[in-house]
């Protein structure tokens, strides 16, 4: 492979990985069971996935923000958190598709970090919301 083409491939690969949920540092990632255990504390839980999935089922108490892989979703996220204190616990989840290719978690997390939020967690949905939350028998709101 020519060096120029190799560089383009590497750059494209790097860009693609930059959008993946797996780029979020693992110390900020929690498992669904952890979220279940803190539901009673009523943290701010924001859904950053597709509306059609949220409308079918979602984590009780969670709020729909929008797909943060898209500009409108990022804008909605900024609006939602603008009055929150920077040390507020904010939990992000999506579950639109497998974790490694989720396009929404990383942009949402990065946006909140950029805005100065210090207590952000993201929920690891390995396959999707149906498999990793609903099918596990965790609480669901509709």
């Amino acid at each position, binding site marked *: 492979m020519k060096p120029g083409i190799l560089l383009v491939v590497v750059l494209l690969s790097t860009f693609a990985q930059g959008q993946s949920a797996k780029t979020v540092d693992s110390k900020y990632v929690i498992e669904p069971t952890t979220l279940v255990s803190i539901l009673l504390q009523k943290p701010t839980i924001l859904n950053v996935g597709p*509306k059609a999935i949220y409308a*079918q*089922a979602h984590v009780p108490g969670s709020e729909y923000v929008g797909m943060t892989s898209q500009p409108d979703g990022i804008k909605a996220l900024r609006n939602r958190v603008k009055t929150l204190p920077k040390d507020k616990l904010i939990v992000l989840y999506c579950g639109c*598709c497998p974790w490694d*290719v989720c396009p929404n978690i990383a942009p949402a997390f990065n946006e909140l970090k950029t805005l100065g939020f210090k207590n952000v967690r993201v929920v690891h949905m390995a396959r999707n919301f*149906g498999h990793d939350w609903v099918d596990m028998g965790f609480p669901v709101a509709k």
Partner: protein
Amino acid sequence: MTGSTWDSRLRSDPGKAGRKALLVLAALILLSVATGCKPRPNVTPSTTNKPVAPQFLLTDISGQKLDLASFRGKVVLLDFWATWCAPCRTEIPHFIEMQNRYGPQGLQIIGISLDDSIKPVLKYYAEQKMNYPVALGNDELAQAYGGVLGLPVAFLIDREGRIVWKQTGEADAAVFEKQIADALSAR
């Protein structure tokens, strides 16, 4: 029923009992001819215990009516997908190829996009030169199909309108082809 009761009934109306016995015998003969006398290779298992695919009438992204009922008699692959879903995008070229290859045999692929708006779907449809109808879905349709709580999800619907297979998550083209070929050859 005890033997004495049976005997007494026979005795009370021997002609009626004889006719009944003949009818039972004739029914047994007919049943054996219909089901057991000849071996029947390549018999496809009955799908009558499979759920009927929920009907829908949508408008596709080109403005045409998309009525599932109008595809009765065809094998339908109903694909829930979205433009932002990477594994969905991986599958689309295979579906385009399958529509070309199996369409003449009776396959109809239908895409149900869970994008929030039509704009990215129109763009993607044109870029990929998709060759099967696509409509925007919604949570009601997804719920009707048992809930689509992650993408992609595909349902294979046989010629009688029954769901014979469901694939959750991305799968190799060969997996789809096997199921589609089986459904197309089923009679």
